């Protein structure tokens, strides 16, 4: 018997619909699991980024408190008058307080800068997440709606094929 040409309508194996339904079903299940794993990884990274942000916020808060204390110490040093042995006002040496205040100010500046950088990283992360979620939504539509609907169509084809085969027996 001559093999059907491309112009002819034919089905080589009546079980093709069952096979396709199984393949599609397996694809849906496996990829649903894989998407869940991707989502878990994304969540873990986002959680880690959030924790880093909280740590940097805490560091900034600590640095500010340290700066306030250094300010108070310096002010105290400047405000309390000192006198020499003969009772004349003496200029007090507050260099160590000034130096401590400068170090604290640097720490605040750096902590603020690091937090700003972290916030910027988070904004970029949000942008990347949005791009990913757009594509994920489309893929999930394929897995949850489109392919199950295609399975239903294949099921109808399979039923028609069975009815046709029953007619011939």
């Amino acid at each position, binding site marked *: 018997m001559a093999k059907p040409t491309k112009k002819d*309508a034919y089905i080589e194996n009546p079980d093709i619909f069952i096979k396709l339904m199984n393949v599609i079903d397996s694809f849906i299940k*496996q990829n649903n699991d894989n998407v869940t794993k991707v989502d878990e*990884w994304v969540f873990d990274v986002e959680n880690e980024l959030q924790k880093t942000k909280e740590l940097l916020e805490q560091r900034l808060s600590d640095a500010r408190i340290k700066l306030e204390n250094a300010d108070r110490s310096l002010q105290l040093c400047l405000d309390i008058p000192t006198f020499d042995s003969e009772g004349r006002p003496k200029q007090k040496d507050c260099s160590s307080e000034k130096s401590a205040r400068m170090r604290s100010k640097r720490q605040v500046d750096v902590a603020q800068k690091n937090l700003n950088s972290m916030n910027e990283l988070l904004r*970029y992360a949000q942008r990347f997440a949005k791009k990913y979620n757009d594509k994920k939504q489309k893929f999930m539509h394929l897995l949850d709606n489109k392919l199950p609907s295609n399975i239903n169509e294949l099921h109808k*084809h399979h039923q028609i094929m069975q009815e046709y085969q029953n007619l011939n027996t």
Partner: protein
Amino acid sequence: MANSDSNKRNNSSNKIESINPLVDPFHEPCFVFFKELDKVEDMWNDSASNSFRHEVTEYSRKTTKEYLEAVNNIFESYSAILSEAQKLKKWNAGFGQWMSFLDLSVVAERGISRLFFNRDDHRF
């Protein structure tokens, strides 16, 4: 020895190259799925099969490809962002250490180089 080399070559041609831990698990199910769908043309030919090829095979291939590219992108960009965030956690972060520009090439390619290259160098 020659056989062993030949086997290695055959195995490597069958095995899909690893990309990253997020994308890799999709390889096998996608490979099997599209291999089976591609066989449809030879086994089933009528107007319904044409519609199937267009509606299922082509659409699924396009959507899956786009999704896997998105997975790959988020893996690379998130890994780079996480690596930068880890550096900010270090006790000396912002106190003058140089950023690792080479590690950032992936992120830089995606247009966020400004973030890192404009960062002030706090060396006191």
